[in-house]
């Protein structure tokens, strides 16, 4: 008994000691860092480094501000950055809102999905700098912009932030090339051929194991809809959320094409071509359908790495086919997204003068310079890669957290890093995403640059009416009449107002 008590005392004492030690070593590190930086200062470029604090989201591992990459980043930007790395996802917005209301804002803040209601209200209340008038002095920042994205990022016709460009179109169809080969099939060119292929994946024993144990499509909900639904509805010719005709806005779900897409899915569901539990399957288990070789295709993002990589890592026979072109009754259409995900905003509260704003923009401009492309994509020369007469060899692939850091901080033109030695399946995914970005078949959503008060207030509630109805239609719980009444409910619950407000906003913007 007393031994045990002594033991527990010892345990607590040891833990306390560890804690104190780790706290000390933490402090020591920081102190060392400071002295290093101050030692470097005289060697830096003619101007003194810009000091600023920036809040950035991260997913997975957090970047280390003592790493060679981060140090190089500061040198390139000629800046002393205090990063506030914060978990991405919903809790990120909790923190943003807390900081907004308490005034503890950093000098720059990265907002994912800036056109969400979270930030619209603050932007309208004048919380952030309008950047339009200043950008002209920064050629590298201008080079990263283009009219489409510029248009999408505007709030009430003005630009409040520097966006980090992303591909406009990530959607695509990923399927097992080795299954196609086994069945003697080719890449589908039309919606009907896609159906034939998925059907063959289901009934034709594509894995040649003699058992009827496969399905064509792995499907799960992403953003309340089946992952591939938006893509298929566009292939059928439905607009991307809204169509605009003579200044009037027509919701996609009121069109015939949209209903055809629902029927397509209904058929997949009834014929057992996709997993019947798509409405409630969890992400992990859905991914496992692909990873265990039970399902042969996904129709979400073309670069759906999380789902597909483990398959190829564990099954050397598996091969991938990725494509985004598929012809429907009116040809090929690809849904265009806004073309950026992260926007850097500069709070007026902390960035007090124009001079200061220009300094920070200048630092970002240096990071976006064309000659820093290798840094952004491969990392630090001599640490991550070597360059001998233009031939690059990778010493150590740039860690994921720094690639994400560049996606959230570097406003350079959209580019897809392709490291030498990248496996074929990743190259394919990247290629499709890069090519779709410039595709002539892109269909944009005319409401991107517009704002509807009602939608800001209750958009998610309204969206849910339709997405629920789509899923009920697919599994046969409601029919066309039921879907019509869902549309009627959408309209009366505020949808009519949304359409009117978009039309009014459009008139105003002209």
């Amino acid at each position: 008994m007393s031994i045990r008590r002594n033991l527990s005392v010892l345990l607590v004492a040891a833990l306390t000691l560890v804690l104190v030690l780790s706290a000390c070593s933490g402090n020591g590190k920081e102190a060392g860092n400071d002295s290093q930086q101050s030692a470097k200062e005289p060697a830096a470029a003619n101007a003194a480094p810009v000091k600023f604090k920036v809040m950035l989201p991260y997913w997975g591992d957090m970047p280390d501000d003592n790493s060679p990459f981060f140090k190089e980043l500061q040198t390139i930007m000629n800046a002393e950055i205090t990063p506030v790395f914060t978990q991405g996802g919903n809790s990120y917005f909790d923190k943003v809102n807390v900081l907004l209301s308490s005034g503890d804002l950093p000098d720059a803040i990265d907002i994912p999905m800036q056109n969400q209601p979270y930030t619209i209200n603050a932007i309208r209340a004048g919380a952030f700098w309008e950047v339009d008038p200043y950008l002209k002095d920064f050629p590298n920042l201008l080079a990263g912009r283009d009219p489409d994205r510029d248009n999408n990022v505007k709030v009430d016709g003005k630009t409040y932030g520097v966006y980090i460009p992303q591909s406009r179109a990530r959607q695509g169809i990923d399927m097992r090339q080795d299954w196609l080969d086994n069945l003697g099939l080719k890449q589908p060119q039309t919606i009907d051929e896609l159906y034939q292929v998925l059907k063959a994946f289901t009934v034709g024993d594509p894995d040649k194991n003699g058992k009827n144990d496969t399905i064509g499509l792995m499907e799960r909900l992403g953003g309340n809809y089946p992952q591939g639904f938006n893509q298929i509805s566009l292939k059928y010719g439905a607009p991307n959320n809204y169509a605009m005709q003579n200044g009037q806005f027509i919701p996609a779900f009121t069109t015939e094409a949209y209903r055809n897409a629902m029927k397509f899915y209904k058929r997949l569901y009834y014929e057992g071509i996709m997993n019947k539990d798509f409405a409630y399957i969890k992400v992990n288990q859905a991914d496992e359908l692909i990873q265990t070789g039970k399902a042969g295709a996904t129709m979400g993002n073309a670069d759906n790495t999380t789902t597909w990589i483990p398959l190829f890592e564990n099954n050397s026979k598996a091969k991938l086919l990725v494509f985004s072109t598929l012809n429907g009754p009116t040809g090929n259409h690809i849904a265009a997204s806004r073309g950026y995900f992260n926007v850097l905003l500069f709070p007026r509260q902390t960035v007090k003068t124009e001079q200061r704003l220009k300094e920070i923009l200048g630092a970002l401009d240096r990071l976006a310079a064309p000659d820093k492309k290798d840094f952004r994509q491969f990392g630090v020369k001599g640490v991550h890669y070597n360059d001998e007469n233009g031939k690059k060899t990778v010493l150590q692939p740039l860690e994921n957290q720094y690639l994400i850091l560049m996606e959230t901080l570097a406003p350079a033109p959209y580019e897809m890093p392709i490291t030498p030695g990248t496996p074929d399946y990743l190259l394919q995914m990247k290629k499709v995403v890069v090519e779709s970005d410039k595709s002539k078949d892109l269909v944009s959503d005319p409401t991107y640059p517009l704002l509807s008060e009602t939608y800001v207030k209750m958009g998610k509630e309204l969206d849910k009416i339709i997405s629920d109805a789509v899923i009920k239609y697919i599994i046969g719980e409601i029919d066309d009449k039921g879907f019509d009444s869902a549309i009627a409910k959408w309209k009366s619950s505020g949808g009519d107002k949304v359409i009117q407000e978009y039309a009014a906003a459009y008139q105003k913007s002209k």
Partner: protein
Amino acid sequence: MSYSHAPYNKRKKWLRMLKQLRTNIWLYILVVPGIVYFLIFKYLPMGGLIIAFKDFNPFLGFLRSPWVGTEHFARLFSNNDFIMLFRNTLLISLYKIVFYFPVPIIIALLLNEIRLKLFKRTVQTLIYIPHFFSWVVISGIFYILFTTEGGFVNHLIEYFGGSSINFLGSKEWIRSLLTTQTLWRDAGWGTILYLAAITTIDPQLYEAAKIDGAGRFRLMWHVTLAGMRSTIVILLILQIGHFMDLGFEQIYNMLNPLNREYADVFDTYVYVAGIQQGQFSYSTAIGMFKSTIGLILVLGANYLVRKFGEEGLF
């Protein structure tokens, strides 16, 4: 007469109070830090509730955001789904009180019957593990158990000749599944408090009852359960007070378009319509509505309990 005596009486009263204070000075000293804590960390932030009557914009802050009166409450009450949300909240809470609440008590009573110390301790330690599972993980486990596509339970049903049941994709089962989840996760955890309550029972009571010829079941009922009574009563009142709070995480992870009609509750609605949309004021208004009902329920339950001679909450 009363005129001349009044000041005297008042003074006497004061003196008495002062004396009471002085003799029990330590009680007051002990209670003050706690009161200060509640005032600073609970009541001061409650000022933020005014945003239920404003259109709160974090950047403008609590004072500068514009007033809108009872607009948010009107929006809640006029919502098409209000009745559905209310009904679901009511039913799921009721399920929990009826099917979950007694279970930890029963387990604690049974554990108390165990004489093998090692067995008892092992069981106690194991049954509280599920409490540390996050709802995300639990909903994943339930998916694996209950899906129609090769789920464990449906395998069993089919093995015994039944036809598979769409547990997760239908309205009928969702409330039972939620209750089952709560049972699995928290029943073991809930026993801890009762086991602690049992330790306070005077062993002489058992001896006395045995001399009176009480059997095992009567000992359990008249001594053990009676000894846990005040703890049970308090937990019941608190549970009733949280009638409207079901927590958003558990239900949100189980919710899908096919069962929403039976499982969407205020906590999940507020997440979609309020929090995800950055509608702070609307969220706060819904919270206030829930709290008010909770307050009424607590006051009512407490009143009833005191009427039956129990100590109650206050």
